[in-house]
């Protein structure tokens, strides 16, 4: 076994110290009928050098251009980040239950909480969730703890469909929460909140995503001032430029900050709220304190909310969350600085507009009039072969929305196009390539 620390001789020596005749004797407390009677049918061992050859043989392909987002975004990751986050001390340490030898992680989480609070305009934030989709579900569970009598939940129809599906799963095990999906204005792409202020005030929460799944920045017109608003975001890069949505809880996905897309996991979610709700927060919190000498130190705090102490009355069952991914986000934000982040965000927004304008000139206009950050919807009904023709050239012109809305005829030819800073230097070439296929035949 490649990762064993023992040798045949030390095994024998240890068995003698234990007073066991052989390894089998150590398993004697398992009833005979419980024992597996055959070897595991798992191939290997494969030597390291061979494994790389096997991987090469898989012939993994990738698109040349992929304007695909929809909740996960391809962004540039600085070289220093990869070097820093692969250090043993970050990679191979545990959750900081012993703060005296985990100040590195404790300070890192404190920085994460600070960044999340600043970027969302909230007072406090926790030390990270699994991802954006579960963070949103936990936000609703927290709303339920704060407003136990409310039962109706208004959800924007422009919420990421996978987030809505996860939310439905979580809530189907809560008694009597009714989900009401708010319509999306077909012209602007914004959520229409046509619910009376009284109904909103009495509701469990109003969930709005901004920028929303169609890339449109919500204006939140019609949301009552005293509604319990949960603001969700999947493109954290937008937080650098777009003003925060006033809300009770801000949750979202931070993959855009230094985390590779890696098929959507692992990533990390942020969870920010008002200080008055702190005791209802799910997940881990790091607080500042002092050590026995009065020196500044950091440690896990308010653990009495957590499962390892409160058990079935905990605010959440979360234990291991997303430490290394929080580290990536923190390192990314620190390397970029506020101005670097704004610069990159601006390159996203400008490149996306440039491509959108270019497509419009080709007769492929945006579907929505509402302003957007780095993602927008186009309709290819007039160019039914374009998407496929480009795909043959390993160019993916957006995400087909029919995949998420199979029953909605209007979505049949619609594509969600994402343009990030990675496309900024080549924005002209991207438009030109589409032009060649769309009109230049």
């Amino acid at each position, binding site marked *: 076994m490649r990762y064993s620390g023992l040798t045949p001789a030390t095994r024998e020596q*240890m068995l003698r110290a234990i007073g066991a005749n052989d390894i089998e004797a150590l398993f004697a407390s398992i009833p005979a009928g419980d024992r597996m009677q055959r070897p595991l049918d798992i191939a290997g061992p494969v030597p390291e050098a061979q494994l790389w050859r096997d991987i090469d043989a898989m012939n993994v392909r990738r698109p040349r251009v992929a304007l695909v987002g929809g909740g996960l975004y391809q962004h540039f990751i600085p070289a220093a980040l990869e070097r820093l986050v692969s250090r043993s001390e970050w990679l191979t340490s545990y959750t900081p239950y012993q703060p*005296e030898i985990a100040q590195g992680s404790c*300070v890192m989480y*404190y920085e994460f909480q600070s960044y999340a609070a600043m970027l969302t305009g909230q007072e406090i934030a926790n030390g990270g969730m699994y991802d954006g989709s579960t963070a949103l579900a936990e936000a609703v569970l927290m709303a339920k703890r704060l407003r136990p009598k409310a039962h109706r939940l208004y959800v924007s129809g422009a919420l990421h469909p996978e987030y809505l599906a996860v939310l439905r799963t979580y809530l189907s095990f809560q008694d009597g929460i009714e989900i009401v999906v708010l319509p999306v204005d077909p012209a602007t792409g914004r959520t229409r909140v046509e619910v009376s202020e009284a109904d909103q005030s009495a509701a469990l929460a109003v969930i709005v995503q901004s920028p929303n799944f169609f890339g449109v920045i919500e204006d939140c017109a019609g949301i009552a001032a005293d509604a319990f608003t949960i603001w969700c975001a999947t493109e954290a890069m937008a937080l650098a430029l777009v003003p925060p949505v006033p809300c009770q809880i801000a949750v979202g996905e931070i993959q855009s900050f230094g985390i590779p897309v890696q098929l959507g996991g692992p990533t990390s979610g942020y969870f920010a709220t008002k200080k008055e709700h702190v005791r209802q927060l799910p997940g881990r919190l790091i607080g500042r304190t002092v050590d026995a000498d009065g020196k500044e130190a950091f440690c896990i705090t308010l653990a009495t909310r957590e499962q390892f102490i409160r058990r079935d009355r905990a605010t959440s069952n979360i234990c291991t969350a997303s430490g290394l991914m929080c580290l990536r986000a923190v390192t990314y934000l620190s390397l970029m600085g506020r101005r670097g982040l704004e610069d990159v965000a601006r*390159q996203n927004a400008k490149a996306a*507009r440039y491509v959108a304008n270019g497509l419009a000139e080709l007769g492929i206009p945006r579907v929505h009039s509402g302003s957007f950050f780095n993602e927008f919807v186009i309709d290819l009904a007039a160019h039914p072969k374009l998407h496929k023709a480009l795909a043959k050239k390993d160019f993916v012109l957006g995400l087909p929305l029919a995949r998420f809305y199979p029953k909605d005829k209007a979505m049949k030819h619609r594509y969600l196009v994402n343009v990030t800073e990675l496309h900024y230097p080549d924005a002209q070439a991207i438009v030109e390539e589409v032009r060649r296929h769309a009109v230049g035949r």
Partner: protein
Amino acid sequence: MRSVVDRPIFHIARDDRGGFGAFAPNAEVDAVELDFAQRSDGCGGFAQVSEPECVRHYTRLSTLNFDIDRGLYPLGSCTMKHNPRLNEAVAADPRFATPHPYWPEPYLEAHQAIMGELAKDLAEVSGFDEVCLLPAAGAHGELTATFMMKAYHQAQGNTAKNVILIPDTAHGTNPASAAMTGFKCKNISSGPDGYLRLEDVVPHLDDTVAGIMITNPNTCGIYERDLSRIADALHAKDALLYMDGANFNAVMGIFQPGKLGVDVMHFNLHKTFTTPHGGGGPGSGPIGYVSKLAPFAPGSGTKQSIGPVKAYFGQWGMYIRAWTYIRSLGGKGLREVSEEAVLNANYIKARLADTLHVPFATPSFHEFVATDKGFPNDLATIDLAKRLLDHGFHPPTMYFPIHVKGAILIEPTETESLEELDRFIDAVKAVRAEMETSPEVVRTAPHTTPVRRVNEALAARQLHLRWSVGDE
């Protein structure tokens, strides 16, 4: 030796430094005007550091952490074993790190195949009919499983089944997950020998019981020898048996829970299958289950499915690491992992028999529980733990499991050498001796760590959870 603790980065950031450069200007693109209102609060007020400052900051911070690569990390129930760097290299390969789940299918064929192989291997090692990889961590796997258990009972029309039995050895996540599913939790005591006997369960088995959550080997490191008999008793009442697989590192190739009446179980890829703990994640918590629960699983394609519990494919970056590990070891190697994990724990237990009180005579598997009974001068588990830091070791898990007073839970894992085990044993013995000869040194430990004993009560009393502009 104490080192300087870096303050959070906000204290060294300045606003008059340039930001990190994005791409060189593209004048034609830059000419496009932005048509939305932009935030004017400077993103809440954080500033810039230079790259050298940033690299030094996170490098220095990292050195304040204890990590497996520095030494034995015997946290019971956490399985802190070596994280092979091959796994990291494979996961970081752009072929695996960068694909998007919404790319067209042809680009994802290899990834789908790897997920299929991992699910198949996990099914083989556990004996379950099917495996769902999706849950994001162990506790999330528990939640997914308890959702499925609830959906199963609802489908049978057994709406009265709303109680989950929780043995006193259970991880806190078990009752927390059950409660999030809308179950009531009923705590039950395990037997005097450290395991749950059939007769401990039977009196509680009425028509309200939906299931039980058992960790095996349990959190005392003891094999639950009545497991299959408990399963039979539960199944006679159409209740379900959940097994917490946090301790699966002890039993690969030794027993298959899916063949012994366990209905559903979670794996921790970050414990058993060497994906790194990363200072608190990410984890990955696939679940295995028998066919009667299959229709209720996420992605089952039936109307009875509970639905997704997470967006996209789950923790792909962890799957690829676990897949690499399993390929690297093969079936025979996985069994040897469990054998040596158990051997190492029993070796420490035998060598410390004259040093620490061990409450159960029952044989141990990959970990064993000791207590602070007999410590002199009013010293307790926490003092042993903190003084071990001065001897260069991470302490064992303290005060867990909760039903063992002053618990000290020790799990060395299989990746330690005999020499490292001996160094740890010597350190425990040395601290035990110091408790007699210099109790104040132990009571006020640690003395050599970057910070001294941290005032956790003050942190909770004077909540300070973030930096703000103007903070001292």
